[in-house]
Every structure is written in C-alpha cells, then in structure tokens.
C-alpha cells in the first residue's frame, strides 16, 4: 500500500475558496441568468411581437429601434431571439433529460446488476455509440417528423449511449469503493447501497456531463434546425433563426445575432461545467 497515494489525497480544506468566483464564471452565470429570464418572461425584455412584423420594414439593419435588425418579413429579430429562447432552452433540457434518465437508468442497471444483463445492455449502448451521434439524431428526427421537440428527442436519444457509459463506469467504480463494502458491513442491503451510496456518488459525474451536454444539445438541435428539422414558422428557436437568416447574405445580422447569442450561451455553459469540475 502506498502511503504517498494517501497523502496526496489529503483533504485540502478549502479556505475561502467558495467565495472565489473567477470573473469569467460570474459572467457566465450572468449570461445564463439572462437566458433564463428571456425564456421565462420574454415580454419583460421586448414589447414587439415576434410573429407579426411590418412587411414594409423588412431587412432593416440593427438600430436602437431594432437592436438585432429586422428579418425578411419586417419582424424585430431581437424579439424573435428573446421569444425563441424558451423553445431553445426547453428543447435542450428535454434532450439532456432523456439522456440522463434513459442513459442513466441503463448505465445504473448494467453496472449494478452485472452479468448477462450488463452484457446485453452494453451491446445496446455500443450500438448507440457506434452510430455517429449526429447521424443518429438525423435519422431519428426524420422518422419522428419536423418539429423542434422531435429534434430534442433525437438529440436525447443520441446522447443516451454516452450517459449510459459514464453512469455504468461510475457505478462500477463506486460499487467497488471501500465505503460501499463498509456499508455492507453495517448491515446495508443491496437496495440500500444502490440508492444511498452508489447513486449519489455516481450521479456526480453524470450531472457534470449533463451540464456539458446541455450546451452540446443546443448546438445539435441548432444543427438539425439548420438542416430543416425544426418547428414550422413562426417559431423562432435560435437554430431556426440562423437557418432562415443564412439565406439572406445581404442581411448578415440575421445570422450573426442569433449565432452570437447561441455561442455566448453555450460558452457560458461550458465555462460553468469546467468550473464545476475544477471545484469538485
């Protein structure tokens, strides 16, 4: 037994570290807070109607009246971005939720039950992993139909494999942990150990992955929207906005404004995920 391994694991009792938020993390939280508010109370941020515009005012560049300019039907792009937030955010959440729940459950059962159950589930997960996730998403969404929610489901399905694998390896790791054996010696049943020890410990990495996956899902769903798998008009998810905007190269802001909002959001999510990983 190497003593050094232990001394390295010595508890670094963090002094005052909780209060030390790097400025970029603060900024990321601010961005996410704004995005959250946009999705909950869009009307607080814009008085304009995202679906109805003044056709005569089409293709106006960004100005004080229209922060992000207007689109091909004279609608205020900022209003469309703000009102599209809820759909973008919830669809990413749905995708992550499917990944976490389905993938997590598969990984949990595979890791904890083991044996042939594990072998069967492992092949299933291998299949999900082997099909490139974007291809999988495209195939699934095409069989479900053109809707943002379907794109979200497809994205979630394509993430199931990753979650299952992480969950399984975490469960296996935790199951072999000394403290699990200790609990067994304390009279803990399998169920008790699964629910009280294995799950909470294993879910940490899964949650961190979930944060990362949230950002990734926004991008994948936007990618699907780019290919045309999004809600019908007048929906204004960010991906749809970029996808519509790209057809009007003379009005570049139609692409750049929603793209920047998307990038800022995903960047913030990634920053926070990295920060969580570090502080853990």
């Amino acid at each position, binding site marked *: 037994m190497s003593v*050094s391994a*232990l001394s390295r694991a010595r508890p670094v009792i963090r002094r005052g570290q909780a209060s030390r938020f790097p400025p970029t993390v603060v900024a990321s939280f601010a961005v996410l807070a704004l995005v959250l508010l946009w999705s909950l109370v869009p009307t607080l941020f814009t008085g304009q109607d995202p679906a109805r515009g003044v056709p005569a005012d089409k293709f106006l560049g960004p100005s004080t009246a229209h922060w992000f300019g207007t689109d091909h039907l004279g609608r205020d792009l900022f209003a469309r971005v703000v009102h599209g937030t809820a759909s973008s955010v919830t669809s990413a959440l749905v995708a992550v939720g499917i990944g976490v729940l389905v993938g997590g459950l598969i990984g949990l059962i595979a890791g904890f039950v083991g044996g042939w159950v594990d072998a069967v589930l492992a092949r299933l997960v291998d299949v999900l992993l082997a099909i490139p996730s974007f291809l999988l998403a495209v195939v699934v969404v095409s069989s479900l139909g053109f809707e943002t929610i379907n794109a979200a489901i497809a994205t979630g399905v394509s993430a199931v494999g990753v979650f299952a694998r992480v969950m399984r390896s975490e469960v296996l790791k935790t199951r072999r942990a000394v403290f*699990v054996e200790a609990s067994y010696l304390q*009279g803990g049943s399998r169920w008790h150990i699964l629910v009280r020890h294995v799950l909470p*410990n294993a879910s940490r990495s899964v949650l961190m992955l979930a944060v990362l996956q949230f950002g990734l899902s926004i991008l994948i769903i936007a990618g699907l929207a780019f290919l045309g798998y999004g809600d019908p008009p007048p929906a204004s998810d960010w991906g749809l906005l970029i996808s519509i905007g790209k057809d009007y190269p003379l009005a570049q802001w139609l692409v750049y404004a929603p793209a920047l909002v998307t990038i800022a959001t995903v960047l913030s999510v990634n920053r926070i995920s990295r920060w969580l990983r570090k502080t853990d």
Partner: protein
Amino acid sequence: MAPQDRLTLDRVTAPADDALLRVEGLSVSYGDNQVVTDVSFGLRRGGSLALIGESGSGKSTIARAVLRLLPEGTGRARGLVEFDGQDVLSLSERRFRSLRGRRIGFVPQDPSTSLNPVRTVGSQAREAAALLDEPGGHRELVLETFAQVGLDDPRRVYDSYPHQLSGGMLQRVLIGLTVLPRPALIVADEPTSALDVTIQKRILDLLSDLRRDLDISLLLITHDLAIAAERADTLVVLKDGVVQESGGTASVFSSPSSEYARKLHADVPALNPDRYRHLRERPAGGTGERPKIEVGGVTKSFTVDGRALVAVDDVSFTVEAGTTHALVGESGSGKTTTIRLLLGLEEPDRGTITVAGEEVTGRSHAELRSIRRHLQLVYQNPFTSLDPTWTVKRLVGESLDRFRVGTRRERADRVREALDSVGLGENLLSRKPGALSGGQRQRVALARSLVLRPDVIVLDEPTSALDVSVQAGIVEVLLSLQAELGLTYVFVSHDLALVRQLAHTVSVMHRGRIVESGAVATVFDDPRRPYTRALVDSIPVGAGTVSGGVS
C-alpha cells in the same frame, strides 16, 4: 550499522564558511497562502541535516524551494538560499539548471510515481548519465551505477518499465540516478515512507553508505523522529512552516526545548515502547473461557492471470476476549485477506473460523448479518472508507438505521455517544468527510464501528495513513475503549513498534503463512525466525542510543 554516523552526532553545527547550503529567512507561499515562514538553517559540507515535522508542516515545500521546483505561477519563495556560495533564488533558470542534477540531487518520496511510466528505466537513466559531460559509454555507466546501488540484475532493470519493478528496486534506481553525476548535496524527501519496513532500513543504509563513500551532504526530510535521529547530525523541527527547534541531533533529541519537539518525541512508538503499558496490562480477564476468536487452518487462494496464488496458507490463531491480537508482516503477506475471511467477506477454501462461538464460514447473508453486529471493521484508509456524500451523523448512524435499533432519538443519542467516546464533538455531526482531517475521519470510522457496541473490532492498519501525533491519539482512544468496554481487537499493521505498544499477542505472517506467534514481548525480544528478526531489526534504532535520557 554505520557507526561513524553515530560518532558524528555530537558535532556542532558547521561554521558559516564551511556551509554548503545556507537557508536564511526563507518564506514560501502558494498563491496568497504562506506555508513556510522565516526558516533558517545551514548544512556543512559532508554533513547531514534532517527536517522533521508532521504532515503539511512545509518540509517538502522547503525542499522544493531549495531545488527551485515550486509549481510555476503559484509557488513563490522569498529569502536567501545559498548553495556553495551562490544565491540560488536569484539565479536565472538557465544558470540554475547547470546545478540541478549535477551538483544538487533529489531523491523523491514515492519511487513508484517518480519515473516516467511510459519510458524504460534505462532511457531515463541515460538522461542522468548525460549530465556527467563524459562522452559516450552512458549505458555502461548506468549499469555500473545500478550494480553499485545493489540491484541484482542491472540489465533487466535497464530494459524494464517502471511498473515492472518493485518499490524497493525503483528507489534504488532513483538513488543511483541521483548519485551518478556525483552531486555535492542530495535532498531526500521521505525516501522510504512508501516502502515496506524491511526495505526501508536497507534503503536508508544504502544512502548512508553512499554518502560516506562519495562524500555527499544530505538534506533528509522525514516525519519519523527515530529515523531522523539515526541518520542526521543536525535536526530542524518544523510545525506549520515555522522552525520550532534546531540544533545538533543529540541535543534536540535528548533535551528537546520546545513543547512541540517534546510531544513529537513522545508520540513516536519506536521511542516509547511502553507508553501505554498502564492501559494494556489490566488483569487479564476471561482466561479459561473459550477464546473470543478462533481461526483454524484457514487457506485461501486466488486465481491471478490463470495461476493460483495462495494468499493465506493454513493460518491458525486464537484471540482471548478483551485482548489485542496483532497480525504483522510485509506488504502482500496475507494480512488483509486473513481478516476479510474473518469477517465473512471472503469464503475460505479450507479451515474454520469462529467468532464468539459462532461459525463464520458457510453462512448465508442474513446469518452473517447477525454476526456482524458483534464484529466490526475499521479500514486502513479513512479517505476511501467513508462515503464522501454523507454527513458524519448519517455515517455513524448507518448501522443503527439498518438494524433498526431503538427510536430515532435513541439512535441520535448513541451516535453522539460514539463520537464522544472517540473524542469528537457534536459540531462535526453535519459535516461531510471532505471537511475533516485524516485523524478526524479515522475517528469517525472508529465511532461507526463502535456505535453498535460490538465486542470484536478488526482494524486493518488503521493508522498507517496518519501522522505520528494523530496516530498516538487514535491508539490512545483504542486502548482506553478496550480498558473500559473489554473489547477484543484484531490489529493489522506493518509497524512493529506500534504493535509492540498496543498488542498483547502477535502473529507474524510471511507469504501467507504464520511464521511465528505468541505474546508480544516474547516474539519481539527473542525472535526465533530470521524473518521475524529482520522485521524487528528494521525498527529504527536511533531510539536505542539516545532515548535513555528522555524516559
């Protein structure tokens, strides 16, 4: 061994002009966190100096400051570090590099992580040989050095990857690499604490011999006062990055002037074999009764890489109620496997085990469960044996909840009681393990095993991950609980000095077999087997020469 060293013990600290290394007012901080404050000491040419202190006291930090290996960006050193008349801290990186390796060598603590795992030992050794500026023949030079540090098959070592060698061999390699360029100073940071007891002594002897033969000065870092006293002529005692005391070994050792040094001295088991005699030697109760634990002819083998490996081979011993039985032996000798069999965590291939008259082997899960109420285990490593997501309260109370003992209130009371008995306050109840020190964690683990009021507790190296002073605290708790509640302990350790302090009877294990057993005093004072003798010999003897004055 090495009698010259002992003769030089009383030499006074070197005069300044003869100093090879001079540290003056050194302070080191990591970020805003200052961990070493105003440290000064000097090491004369050819001399040896030991830095001692508990974990986290800043010993390694000082070593790194001297070697300028502090982590870039965060670590910052102020003050004066003078090597051979040159101010080390103000040298440019390029100028200092010519000193590193060539003039100042470094022997790290854990040999298993100190060589690049994906390169062969030889290829890394050639890097050291290249420092000698002698053209060609690096390979021969390396092989020669390997032979010099006592490696039996230098060629095999040369072609091996680090993971293919044992810890002792790796440490020899590292020492070889360090002495190869003939440095003037070797900094050794706990060079043996990751190794087996029997190997520790051999490595320290090797260092001493090389030092003498090659006239190298030694800056030795250790947390073991006994080792320091044996191997160094000057001692510097550190606590929280501040020097508590320094001076010639004899004076610091025999008449420590600071409170801390005195306590340090008292806590080292090797220096105080009889410290707990009063607690241990109570009227031996229960003679004539059936022994609490009976292990008879137990054998267990594992299949490793297709081959059978007999981890425990025909092991038998008995433990009387209210006494402590120790299992000692080097790493891999089968100690842990034996106690896992005892707890019913593994099924033996052969043999019987009874605890309090009940057969452990061949029982169902439910039956085992009832036995376990009387039989608890404390693990070696408190950093892995406590669920990091649980609070202390839940951790300690888990078995009460599982066995549905009493009402909610009674359970809470018993948790508090158990924590109290291991010397922990209620203020820790809602903390998670991450917010506890190692000693506190091991006490929590102990409280967890006590809360069901078992009569047998099995302890697997419960203090090997802890500092001596923390260890002393735990040992004291263990012994007073035994005296109070009449508990029976099975105590696994490789630290013979510790075993001598607290056990009544002992079994010495070697390659899965018990080679010798009996009362502690008998086995230790008059070892019959050479293996036992080697184990006993490896207890640092620095104690023997000077401790007389203390006790």
